[in-house]
């Protein structure tokens, strides 16, 4: 900017000059542009829901919705196909239940240890290790289930099949354990120190304080973390595809091959079921069921943590 000595030249004039030079008003356009970007996340949800609804409708045009929910056999590749989703749901629930048996006690105990007993130094070592465990790709866990956990379990129980529900269930449990642990720990840490100290002052031991005072105060966060973890287990795909087999079954046996909803979608996608066949549309009906399951659980988790939160 050249200085003009003769005339006065104020900052205000400079601002006005600069403003008049700009033809496009950036300040007005940017918020609209950013709003469009934010809208894409909403369109994603709408896209998912519409996709699932439309393709599921085409499927229900060919297979009756009553058969879908009441038939007890899932045999899409048979010469007389049968589409009853119950066996896939049973398979999914079996995996989820086994995962819960592993993840809930171990995750909760880890959370209690980290928040109540561990020193700052121990926490700083263990928390990153849990993060690493949470960051391992699921296909790696699947490989681990098939090549390590299954052989070890077969040494223990010789009647176990090569593909079974037990091994992927345990590994899914290990996969969701860090998530349960870290969310539960957050809930425990947010319980104020003063109510712990009140319990100590009454002569309670650390364990008594934890179980009778801290856990009840944090219960909403802990339950929410478990529900979220189980919702992850329901949607988990690669571990069950690799190690769970592909035999949909209704019985409660965990030693034989099963199929989950996710594993069925993978089986169809990696095979060559042509576009437009009933089998092609069946993956959307299964996907829809899966989506509703996880959505309900996620909403439940949000509801629990909001409704039953203790405010201090």
């Amino acid at each position, binding site marked *: 900017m050249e200085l003009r000595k003769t005339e006065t030249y104020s900052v205000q004039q400079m*601002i006005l000059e600069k403003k008049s030079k700009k033809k496009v008003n950036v*300040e007005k356009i*940017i*918020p609209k542009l*950013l*709003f469009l*970007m*934010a809208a*894409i*996340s*909403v369109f*994603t*949800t709408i896209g*998912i829901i519409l996709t699932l609804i439309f393709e599921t409708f085409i499927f229900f045009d060919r297979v009756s919705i009553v058969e879908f929910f009441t038939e007890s056999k899932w045999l899409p590749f048979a010469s007389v196909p049968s589409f009853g989703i119950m066996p896939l749901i049973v398979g999914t629930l079996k995996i989820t239940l086994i995962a819960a048996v592993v993840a809930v006690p*171990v995750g909760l*105990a*880890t959370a209690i*240890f*980290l928040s109540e007993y561990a020193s700052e130094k121990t926490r700083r070592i*263990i928390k990153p*290790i*849990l993060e*690493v*465990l949470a*960051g*391992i*790709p*699921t*296909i*790696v866990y*699947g*490989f*681990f289930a*098939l*090549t*390590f956990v299954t052989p070890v379990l077969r040494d223990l129980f010789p009647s176990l099949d090569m593909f079974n529900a037990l091994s992927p269930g345990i590994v899914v449990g*290990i996969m969701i*354990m*860090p998530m349960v*642990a870290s969310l539960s720990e957050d809930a425990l840490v947010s319980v104020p120190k003063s109510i712990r100290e009140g319990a100590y002052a009454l002569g309670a*031991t*650390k*364990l008594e304080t934890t179980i009778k005072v801290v856990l009840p105060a944090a219960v909403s966060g802990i339950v929410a973390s478990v529900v979220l973890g189980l*919702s992850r287990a*329901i*949607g*988990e*795909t*690669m571990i069950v595809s690799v190690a769970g087999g592909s035999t949909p079954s209704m019985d409660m046996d965990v030693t034989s091959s099963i199929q989950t909803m*996710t594993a069925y*979608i*993978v089986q169809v*996608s990696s095979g060559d079921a042509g576009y437009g066949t009933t089998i092609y549309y069946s*993956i959307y009906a299964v*996907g829809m069921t*899966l*989506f509703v399951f996880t*959505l309900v659980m*996620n909403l439940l988790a*949000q509801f629990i943590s909001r409704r039953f939160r203790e405010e201090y």
Partner: protein
Amino acid sequence: MKLINKSHVAKRMPVRLAVNTICKGLFFLATLVGLIVLAILFYRIFTQGIGHLNGDFLQNFASRKPEEAGIKAALIGSVWLMAVVAPVSLMLGVGTAIYLEEYARKNWITTFIKVNISNLAGVPSIVFGLLGLTVFVRALALDRSVLAAGLTMSLLVLSVIIVAAQEAIRAVPRDLREASFGMGATKWQTIRKVVLPAAIPGILTGGILALSRAIGETAPLVVVGIPLFIAFLPQTVLDTFTVLPMQIYNWTSRPQEEFQQVAAAGIIVLLILLIVMNSIAVLIRNKFQKRY
């Protein structure tokens, strides 16, 4: 009047303390479970895969013979996928975060967007695959291309990036913004030249973590229909390709024992990639972490 029977308390005390110690031990053992599993997992994969990991493995294409199988197409394919996912997801994610933190008014639309993002984070990845298959592969006719897979993956990690960017932007103190406004800067100038530079380490850390999730994801790509076996490299974003986790899945599901070692070698490559990305994220976090 005696309120507390001291002898009774004293008699119970050793048992209560013992139970406390035992439970502390149990909690510690449970914590060790995670560490032990991680150690076994790394040990198993390392010992199984190390024999196969050499220059040839990195330079060969996939093969039906385990001794000739290599990971070139998958490794390059993963890089291609990242080249689409990184710009798309970062731009959308950071844009959304800026809107929500700086511009959005408190009304039902904003609340709806926020609730929607937190629900999107809980949708199983395979459902994103169904979305990608219908919208990108079929409706937009992108076929099984890098672009179709990349866009699907971008939507999958979008919610992670938005949340990380929101936190980073929120951590920039008000004083900085007000100082900038006080100097006469407009809102967008303040965001571009003051808020974003201060928030960039946090955004990058979150972004890299989200990308490392995208690089390890398999399920949505299986549904999109990315081939499991391929022997050429993509030339443009419209070509088909394969990625590391897909190649590992392919090798894992083969019955021959030898392919499990090839799979383990592939996993080592994938894990090294993830470790490098996470180390960069940690480095950025430590180097640029400012305390206001």
